[in-house]
Every structure is written in C-alpha cells, then in structure tokens.
C-alpha cells in the first residue's frame, strides 16, 4: 500500500481555465463587455431616434420660456416670463412642501396608532389593528382617488360652500382661509421665538449638567414649552397682536383674497399621511415590543415610576430600533408623493416629467433630472441614517 502525500509546497498545477482567479477575471470581463454593448446599443439607438424625430438634445431648454400655468406656486412664477428651470423649482418646492407636512402628520398619527395597538384597552387596540390592516392593504392610488374624487370633488360648489364665521370657506374648489400678513412690530415676536428656542437649548444643557452633578431633575419639558410657546405668545399680545387677517371674499362665481388651499393638495396630504401612518404605527409597535420585559422590571425594581420608566428606559431603547425604518417610511412618503400626478397636484413629476416633458419632448434629460433629484434625496438620507446608526449602535464586547 502506498500513500501519496504531497510534501512539496507548490500548489497543484491546474489548467488555466480551472484557475479560480482567471475564471473570475474572465466572468467579469464578459459581464463588462455585455453591459458596455447594451449601453452602447441603447445610446446609439437613442441618438438615431432623436435625430429622426428632430428632437433637440442637451439642457438648453432649461432657460426657455415655459408658457404654462401652475396652480400652486410657492415662489413667484408667471407663465409668460418664467423659464422651464423656474417651473422645475416650483415643482420641487411643491413636492417638498407636501412631503414635509405629510411627514409631520403621518408621524403624529402613526405614533398614536402604534401606541394604541399596544394599549391594555381591548377596544382601542382592536380598532387600531383594524385601521392598520385596512389602510396597509389598500393601494395608495385608490385612497388618493377616493379622497379627491369621492370626497373633495363631491363638496358643494362655490355658491353653497360651507362657511365658518364668514372667514373660512370650504367647497369643491378648495379650502379658503384668512391670509395672515405681518404688521409692524411682528419682528419682536419672531425675535422672542428665536430667543425661546435658544433659551430652551441652554436650559436643557444646564439641566443635564446639573443632573449629572447632583442627581436633581429639572422640569425640562415644561420650561421648554414655556420658552418656545408662551414667551412668543406673550410678546405677541404685548405688541398689540400685529397681524392682519385678510378674509376671503365670496363673490357669485369666485372667491377672492385670502389663502387658497387646493383640493389636490388636501387630498394628497390626507392620502399620504393616512397611508404612511399605518406603516409608521407598525414600526413604532415593533420598536416598543423590542424592549425586553426585563428592562422594565429592572427599572421598577430600581424604584422608577411607570412614567420615568417609559421616558428614561423604554423610549430611548425603542428609538434605536424605530428610527432607521422610520426614516425609510419618510423616504417612501416622499417618493409616494409622485402619485400627485394622478390627481393633478403640481409636484415635481406633474410639472416637470409631465408638462415640461410633453412640451419639449426631451425625455432623456427630463427623466434623468427627475430621477437624480429623488436619488439625491434618498442617498443623502440613507447616508445620514448610516452615520446615526453608527452613533447609537450597541457597543458590544
């Protein structure tokens, strides 16, 4: 019996095509070539097609006059004089406005429902569960169409609009509110507000230092509320309420003056907030459940009351689990705001990828710019999230 143990340290000779390094290199080169060919083919086809259709290329259209109206503009915009570039910014700001407000409402509603689902009150928990199951299983587009076409468009027309104190009108053309405009002396209120924020931050810092030193706690919440809310209000009253409300005036066919909130905006805000709240509720519930029972029992055995236990033990640990998926939901909300195009709210996609694309025909440039905007928002958010995650990650042995 002979044993053939290799004693030499040379690796066994293998054929070149069996060498893993060579193989992986070949695979990668083949992949690169295929993708390169695909891109080359697509690009040359695109150039050929554009030339045939006599469509201009490049970003020259950016400075051309737009010539179309936009129903909601946060910055000055006029159809006859503004450019496509201006229209882009108008659309982007509208997107950001509805996303920011949607995030605020969805967070409030989502936290309430998520906590309700864990409530000891059986009825409340069941109703919250029902809300989540129903809203999550219905397409957002259906919900938007329902709010817009079946609820807001079914409101009475201008002559029969709902009135509230002669200053607020609600009809199928939108919600008309008094428009506040600042008078002389309003600057003091703004100043007081800023000072209140600065004071609150300072107080927080001082309270934390003192607690670390002496163990005494300070009523941070009440002082913060007082500084940020009560102080500006007091200054507002002292300055003689320097705000003028311009009420909308109802005519026969039109309502003039005041502040107009488009029904499209209301429908989109409602739909986005209600839909995303259901997902946020699940995130919050999962986060609260992730704090183990032992943590709460340990806090009780240290003599903490239920309220400080929640504030000092449960919430900080739950937040670590909640915040990453919560940010994801915020991103989803922002991306879902593109459904505005279905109900005609002038967001980035409706204005830019819709109207501008149709007018210029420059599909490649317009779609690329739109995608880059959303990509930028997504990537910066996930970058910030990664930094946050690294900061709060559990340090394990």
């Amino acid at each position, binding site marked *: 019996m002979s044993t053939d143990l290799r004693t030499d340290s040379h690796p066994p000779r293998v054929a070149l095509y069996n060498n893993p390094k060579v193989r*992986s290199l070949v*695979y*990668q080169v083949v*992949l*690169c070539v295929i*993708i390169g060919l695909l891109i080359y*083919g*697509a690009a040359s*086809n*695109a150039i*050929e*097609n*554009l030339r*045939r259709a006599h469509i201009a290329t490049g970003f020259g259209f950016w400075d051309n006059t737009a010539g179309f109206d936009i129903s909601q503009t946060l910055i000055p915009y006029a159809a006859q004089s503004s450019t496509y570039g201006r229209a882009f910014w108008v659309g982007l700001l509208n997107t950001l406005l509805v996303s920011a407000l949607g995030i605020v409402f969805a967070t409030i509603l989502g936290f309430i429902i998520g906590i309700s689902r864990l*409530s*000891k*009150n*059986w*009825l*409340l928990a069941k*109703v919250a569960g029902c809300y989540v*199951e*129903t809203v*999550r*299983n*219905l*397409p*957002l*587009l*259906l919900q938007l*169409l*329902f709010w817009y*076409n*079946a609820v807001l*468009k*079914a409101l009475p027309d201008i002559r029969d609009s709902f009135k509230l104190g002669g200053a607020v009108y609600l009809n199928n053309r939108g919600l008309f509110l008094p428009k506040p405009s600042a008078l002389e002396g309003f600057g003091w209120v703004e100043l007081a507000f800023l000072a209140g924020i600065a004071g609150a931050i300072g107080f927080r810092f001082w309270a934390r230092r003192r607690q670390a030193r002496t163990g005494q706690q300070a009523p941070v919440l009440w002082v913060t509320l007082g500084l940020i809310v009560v102080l500006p209000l007091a200054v507002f009253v002292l300055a003689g309420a320097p705000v003028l409300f311009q009420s909308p005036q109802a005519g026969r066919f039109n309502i003039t003056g005041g502040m107009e909130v488009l029904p499209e905006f209301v429908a989109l805000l409602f739909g986005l907030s209600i839909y995303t709240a259901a997902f946020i509720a699940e995130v919050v519930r999962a986060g609260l459940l992730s704090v183990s029972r032992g943590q709460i029992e340990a806090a009780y055995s240290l003599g903490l009351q239920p309220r400080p236990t929640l504030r000092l033990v449960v919430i900080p640990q739950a937040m670590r689990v909640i915040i990453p998926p919560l940010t994801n939901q915020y991103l989803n909300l922002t*991306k*879902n705001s*593109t*459904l505005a*195009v*279905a109900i005609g709210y002038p967001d980035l*996609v409706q204005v830019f*990828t819709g109207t501008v*694309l149709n007018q210029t025909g420059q*599909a*490649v440039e317009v*779609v690329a710019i*739109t*995608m880059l905007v*959303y*990509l930028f928002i*997504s*990537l910066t958010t996930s970058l910030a999230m990664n930094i946050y995650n690294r900061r709060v990650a559990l340090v394990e042995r």
Partner: protein
Amino acid sequence: MAISDTELVPTNGGFVRREFLPPQPPPVRMTGAFGWLRENLFSSAFNIVLTILVALLLAWVIPALLNFLVIDAVWTGENRDACHQAVQGRPIGACWPFVWERLPYFIYGSYPIPERWRVDLFFALLAFGIGWVFWLDAPRRDLGVVYAFVILPIVSFILLHGFEAIGLRVVDTVLWGGVLVTIVVASVGIVVSLPFGIALALGRRSRMPAVRLFSVLFIEFVRGVPLVTVLFMASVMLPLFVPPNFEPDKLLRALVGIALFASAYMAEVVRAGLQAVPKGQFEGAMALGLNYPQRMRLIVLPQALRITIPNIVNNYVALFKDTTLVFIVGIFDLLRTIEVARIDPKWAAPVTSTTGYAVAAIFYLVCCYGMSRYARAVEARLATGDKR
C-alpha cells in the same frame, strides 16, 4: 363561618389551624364577562374615557358603512335615475346595478366577448399554479415551481395574446383591461422578480468586484427613485433605446418598468435571507467539494429562501398594490377601468364614484389581506419547525 374548637390546636402562645380551608372562588366582579370588561375596558378613569371615545367613533363609522353598503344601497335599476337621491326621494347608498352592469368591463376590459373564455381559462390555470406552489403540503412542489415559473408564462402568453397557427385570434394588448391587466402585471412582476432578485442578491454578495458593483448600482438606483419615474422612464425612454423600426407595445413597456422595480426590491429581501444562513453552511458545502452553482442551489438558497418566504410574500403584497401605478402611464388596469366607468353619463350620480372605489377596495383588500395572512401562517409554521 364560625370556627369550631376542634379545628384549632393550641400551641405555645396561640391557636393554629390544622387543615387548609378550601380556596374561595375569586369575587364575581373579577371573573367572567364582567371581570373581563373591567380588566380590558374600564381599568382606570383614562381607560374609561378612551373606551367611550372609541365606542362613539365606532357608533359613527359602522352604521354609516352599513347604511352605504347594504341598507340604503340600490340593488336593481337600469340607469342613473335608480341611484339619484332627487329621483328616488330617499337617501341613496351604493349603486350596485352600476357595478353589476359594468362587471365584465372591470374584469376583462375591452377584451373581445367571444374570446373571453381564454381569460377565464388563464385565471383557472393561474389559480391552479398558485395553489400548487403556495400550498405547503402539495405533492411534487418542485414540478409546481416549474409549472408556475416556466410553463404557465408561455401558455398564458399564447392564450391571452393569441397564436394564429393554432387558431387563436391575436388580441391586441390595448384591448386588455380590468382585473385581467392587474393580474397580468402582478404575475409578471412576481415571476420575473424572483429569479432576477436572486441573481442580483447573489451578485451583491459576490467576491468579484465588477459583479458586485453593477448589482449595487442597479439595486440602489432603482430603490432610490419612485416607481412613477421608473414607469415614465420605461414608457418614454424605452422606445428611444430600441432600434427605430421596433416599437414596443405600451403594456410591455409598463411590464418592463414593473419587473425592473420589483427585482431590485426582491434582491434586498433575498439578501436578508442569504445573510441569515450561517457561515458554516457555506464552508461545509465547500468542504464537500461542491462548486459555486451547486453550493448555492443545493445548500444555501433552499435555506435562505425558506426563511424569507414570509418577506417574499409581503413584498408581493406591496407589488400587487403598486401595480395600480400603471394607471398613470395609461394602462387600463382595474382602477383605470373604474375611473372610466364612473364618469360614464349613463350612470352619473353622486354615489357612483364611491361605489366604484368600494369595489376596487374590496378587491384589493381581499387579495392583499389574503396574501399577508398566508405570510403570517407560513411564519408561524416555520417558527414551530425551528423550535427545539
């Protein structure tokens, strides 16, 4: 209850009972229905207020829903007059005759009436495939997968699109609509996204830098942009990228967009599953001398996919809801057929829109809720299987 002297035993300094008393039942107020109510609804002042508020909310919502869907609903009628409050002189709920008349349109769109048996057959074949693949105790599920992912797509295409050689008239996709299109878009997304998602997930975890780079770029790009822009890209840019004489069908463009989008999301779901497979499994497979395709096919993927079934199904629920977005690029899915039907002058009444949306809501609720219940059942089953 008086204690007799015989039960008490004198000890030094007192009397001690020798036998245990039988335990008394808990007070009536803490048990039964009354105790349950007290415990779960009225345990504190705050809870009482909450219960009353929620009960008021329910008392407002439930009768309104019932009134609309059943009690005040119109069940028979010929046209809009049946569903008009002014004509009927009573409050009107859902307008069911409208739905009844338009139901074929909601299901088939404008698919030619003599050819609609093909759609019915497609639904039946699909239901059979779904049952085979998703019923965990079905026999020969490996064949079921082949059927669902290879045979069914080919047969369905021939059946729905038509094939002159075997006598099936070609039906142009502009005629397709309603539930048919919703199901086709969702099925294509489901069937395409799984293999592509697996490939992308493996690519993202590959040791070859070029493969990894392309996978990451694709996944992060698609996940970073909204589906609406992907669909816009597919519908306006795709025709530019293909040779001039080859004009892709409108439905096909939307399908490409949906498939790309679904694959990127599926890749992340599968990647989570791959990460949950212990490293020892990879190493063990290598030690057995298996090559890469064998390792993945025989050892890693079966384990990774098994634990991700619930997430895959949840992903399908999201995809199913997202199919409504093809509406925006002008495809006649269920929601779009409802949008078209609800503004038909024949049935124009204040309740028509809400009725139409109620139909869509019931359809999506049943489908999506069913899928998520399935995901939860599988999760529970896997949990018991893994318990030691």
